[in-house]
């Protein structure tokens, strides 16, 4: 399966990276990692890329990594559809101080707009 993982540097997106990489190795998925600009995250694109490379090494999988500028949600949807991806994978949300689960804005947009399957990783 051709999987597009969107990662913007939030904690849940880093968690999604590890789990998606692990899954890709088990299932033999063709994984592409898109590093997006998430205004809700403090990590720079370079820091995210370092984390991505570390995880890909750890799971010993060969994925293509690219930087995506512009609005993250719409870019992910466009890439997935124009390049025939089967699935978009994203972080599944973070916990508020009192434990409520909240989806990020990117995940909300992608869920409502993607014509391909969307996996929210928890």
């Amino acid at each position, binding site marked *: 399966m051709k999987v597009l993982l969107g990662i913007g540097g939030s904690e849940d997106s880093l968690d999604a990276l590890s789990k998606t990489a692990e899954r890709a190795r088990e299932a033999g998925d063709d994984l592409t990692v898109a590093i997006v600009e998430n205004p809700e995250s403090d990590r720079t694109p370079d820091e995210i890329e370092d984390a991505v490379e570390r995880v890909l090494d750890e799971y010993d999988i060969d994925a293509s990594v690219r930087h995506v500028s512009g609005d993250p949600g719409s870019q992910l949807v466009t890439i997935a559809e124009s390049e025939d991806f089967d699935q978009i994978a994203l972080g599944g949300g973070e916990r508020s*101080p009192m434990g409520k689960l909240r989806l990020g804005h990117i995940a909300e947009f992608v869920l409502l707009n993607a014509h391909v399957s969307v996996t929210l990783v928890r």
Partner: protein
Amino acid sequence: MTVDDYPDTASGPFPSPPSSFTDGDDRDIEVRAFDGDTDALVEMYVDFSQEDRAQGVPPVGEDRVRSWLDTLTGEGHNVVAWHDDRAVGHATLVPDGSGGYELAIFVHQDYQGAGIGTRLLRNLLGHGADQGVERVWLTVERWNRAAVALYEKVGFETVDTESFELEMAIRV
């Protein structure tokens, strides 16, 4: 995760617990600040209706409930509604690390629609103000009109409508 926008003016004053009243179903209810009786809250949450869960809380199962309550009662300010010795409602303020507090309120399904939520909320804000809390926010699923109406009634204003959940805030 925090909220940037708060109303300019303060709401209130709000009553401080304890306070007693007769609810809409003629039951005598008392609202008191949390006094360490975690077991009574666990009992309420273990029996809590699954349909009334919101955004993943309360968690399911006694162990998860206990660990969640440890966070709320360890870090936050809490008030409990009692019917005799049974906990039937709970409201909490949890610090968000930026000077504000996140609010949540839960009323057991057998006690909803009787005015307990409004009392609990007002007493929580009064209790919070007594403890130095000034800024309070919450999120609520936008289709939960009953909850939104309750929050508006005590003075919350909607500050962000861009997500699946509404963000509301109040200054006390």
